[in-house]
């Protein structure tokens, strides 16, 4: 680095290290950026910090992966003996579900860009571990178990790196016997690759007004289980998506079922977080989905081996904020490059990491990697997102009918290269979509049977979640009394239901007084509470390093 260290945000007890680029998050976007930087300029010092106890521990995705990103980043990956993707999609089904039936929608009705031909069924956790190994071979330093908790600025307002969290702070907020201060990583460029609703990304977007022209970001929650199915029921490469039951026609979302190797089948469900009924529980919708006849057949005689959940961005083209700012950029799902129509984002995550890296290399002395911001819309990322940009707004407005309209709009693009609708806006933020309890019909969910359907706690156990117990609660309430005072009477406190990990409860004392309970140690870091709380009263912050789920290959 050419210049001296600015001292803004510096704390005397924290050691300082300087480097060229610091990357927050060792997911596909962050690792792709790191790999690309070292490929282009082998001498750059690139440091990646990751809050998960190890690479991949917090990665969760379907996944049917479009290899376009990997092909661009590591053209030789298909010849690598350690390649993480081996199973090509062999059969692609789509169905509309009613309670007892499944109506197949023929593949020919889908525009070509929806096709999953040439894509791979796999595990994004495994892809991530592979990318981490390749990055380390290239000299990237990856430090897992260290969350970035604070953005450092220089005196001009430029982002100048991050600080990792302190360790050994007690529940009372005071340093304990094993207190170990965090560290300041001061860098020329900082890339935020935290995934959907990153805690620092949220701060940097707000501070620099990056979403001023973007409108609302939209989100969904994806819940996933891996099943070891009975012999003969797994057809490697077979994938199926559904819409319809158990969701009503106004609620966006659907299921995915991907058959992999070794009798392992991924079963998952996405619920769009602009749902209106506060008694809806995405977790229980997913459990109910598995009782559909078509799912009972598949899962009978099998057993569930893994569980997890993660929020995803759905806003697409028109919701992507300005992706660069003085001192760095947002990449991957932190920027919102998920393609909701294709329900894929990891290919764009990799491409965006590469583009940000190229922008840094192209203009090492600029304070902002501008060519990334000015270039992505005309790049393959933009060409992936632009034609599907109206699918989500139409789905939100008109429910399932909107999804059909969205399909027609995609056909208009495929045939005429344009849309008659222009670009539709997202009308409101997801936290503003709930209707009061008094205006809705409460949803009653069946009890879990422990075989096909489960409760939250036995599910969370399978995520391997663990947090140091003696630490401050990482789910911060701006107003601790608001949940009981406002959310409970008006909405029945929806946190109890949208949280897929049983973190939030309303306990009632013997005298009938309700209180809001946060079981923070159950948190699987999905970020849904930060998104969906109607009062925006909950802020998700990173807990002590290494905490959270320990996904094996999700």
């Amino acid at each position, binding site marked *: 680095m050419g210049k001296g260290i600015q001292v803004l945000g510096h704390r005397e007890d924290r*050691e300082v*290290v300087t480097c060229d680029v610091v990357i927050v998050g060792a997911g596909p976007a962050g690792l792709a950026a790191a790999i690309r930087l070292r490929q282009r300029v082998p001498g750059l010092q690139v440091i990646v910090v990751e809050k998960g*106890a*190890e690479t*991949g*521990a917090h990665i969760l995705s379907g996944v049917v992966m479009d290899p376009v990103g990997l092909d661009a980043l590591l053209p030789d990956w298909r010849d690598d003996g350690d390649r993480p993707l081996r199973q090509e999609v062999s059969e692609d089904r789509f169905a509309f579900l009613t309670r007892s039936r499944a109506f197949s929608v023929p593949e020919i009705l889908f525009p070509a860009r929806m096709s999953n031909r040439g894509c791979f069924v796999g*595990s994004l*956790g*495994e892809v991530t*571990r592979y990318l981490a190994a390749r990055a380390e071979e290239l000299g990237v*330093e990856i*430090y897992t178990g*260290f969350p970035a908790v604070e953005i450092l600025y220089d005196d001009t307002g430029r982002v100048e790196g991050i600080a*990792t969290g302190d*360790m*050994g702070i007690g529940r009372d907020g005071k340093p304990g*016997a*094993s207190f*170990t*201060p*965090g*560290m300041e990583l001061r860098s020329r460029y900082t890339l935020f690759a935290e995934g959907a609703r990153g805690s620092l990304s949220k701060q940097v977007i707000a501070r620099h007004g990056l979403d001023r022209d973007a409108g609302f970001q939209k989100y969904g929650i994806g819940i996933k289980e891996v099943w*070891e199915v009975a012999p003969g029921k797994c057809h490697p490469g077979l994938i199926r998506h559904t819409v319809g039951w158990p969701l009503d026609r106004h609620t966006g979302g659907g299921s995915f079922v991907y058959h992999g190797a070794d*009798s392992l089948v991924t079963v998952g469900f996405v619920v769009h977080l602009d749902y209106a009924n506060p008694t809806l529980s995405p977790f229980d919708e997913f459990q109910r989905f598995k009782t559909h006849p078509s799912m009972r057949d598949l899962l009978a005689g099998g057993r569930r*081996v*893994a569980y997890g959940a993660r929020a995803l961005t759905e806003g697409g083209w028109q919701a992507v904020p300005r992706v660069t700012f003085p001192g760095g950029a947002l990449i991957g799902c932190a920027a919102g490059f998920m393609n909701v129509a294709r329900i894929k984002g990891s290919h764009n995550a990799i491409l965006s990491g590469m583009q940000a890296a190229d922008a840094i290399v192209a203009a090492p002395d600029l304070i902002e990697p501008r060519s990334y911001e000015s270039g992505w819309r005309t790049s393959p990322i933009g060409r992936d997102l632009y034609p599907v940009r109206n699918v989500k707004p139409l789905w939100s407005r008109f429910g399932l009918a909107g999804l059909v309209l969205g399909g027609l709009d995609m056909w208009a693009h495929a045939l005429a290269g344009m849309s008659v609708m222009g670009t539709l806006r997202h009308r409101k933020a997801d936290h503003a979509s709930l209707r009061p309890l008094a205006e809705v019909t409460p949803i009653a969910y069946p009890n879990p049977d*422990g075989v096909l359907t489960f409760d939250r706690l036995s599910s969370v*156990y*399978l*995520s*391997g*979640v*663990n947090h140091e117990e003696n630490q401050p609660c990482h789910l911060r309430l701006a107003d601790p009394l608001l949940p009981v005072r406002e959310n409970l009477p008006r909405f029945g406190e929806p946190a109890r239901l949208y949280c897929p990990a049983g973190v939030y409860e309303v306990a009632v004392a013997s005298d009938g007084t309700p209180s809001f309970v946060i079981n923070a140690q159950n948190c699987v870091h999905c970020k849904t509470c930060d998104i969906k709380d109607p009062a925006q009263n909950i802020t998700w912050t990173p807990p002590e390093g290494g905490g959270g789920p*320990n996904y*094996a*290959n999700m």
Partner: protein
Amino acid sequence: MKKILVPVKMVLDSNARPRVRTDETGIDVAGMRMSINPFCEIAVEEALRLKEAGAAEEVVVVSIGPAKAQDTLRQALAMGADRAMLIQTDETVEPLAVAKLLCAVAREEVPDLVILGKQAIDDDCNQTGQMLAALLGWPQATFASAVRFAENRLLVTREIDAGLQTLSLPLPAVVTTDLRLNEPRHCALPNIMKARKKSLTVCVPADYGIDIGRRLKIVAVRPPAGRKPGIRVATASELVSDLRAAGLV
């Protein structure tokens, strides 16, 4: 003491939820988080405390396992160990073979103390330390809950059924650690960065001329039986009659 040798093992993390293979040949650990065995971590911590108290000059860590076990050694280096060596093998190494390899390392390194975990949380054998002491012909103190170095002897407190037992050992000696011995430190990021530059040598079991062939045969690996769902009873008398009916009282 001039040198303390700390053998450490990489094990499946205690929070991982491994899947027992349907063919009962073992567990599937692909992609699972691996960590330093907690008892070994305590041994590293104790060695470092002895060194920091001026009772030892050098702490050397050694591990036997796959290439990935280098991560475990790097963690011990980040905690403060001075150098590390990996005896690399992808085979499952049984306690006797581990003890023989460690015996060879000890003869080469000539430490004053070998301190290691009383057992590994993956196979729960609790044999290596004892076998190593026998092979070396050194005194041993197992299940240490306190270790003190004074007048060239080691005072080791052990938790036994009747209370606390304190042994006094001449050096060199072998000590195995219990859970209550200490609380290991956090690895600070600056120390992890510095640990990347510390010496870590890699060799293979054949370098010591030791046969690590397996002597035990695993017949089958099965998951524990699932818990049966309970029932709710309304009254104490109902509970008693149900317990009687089940033949439990």
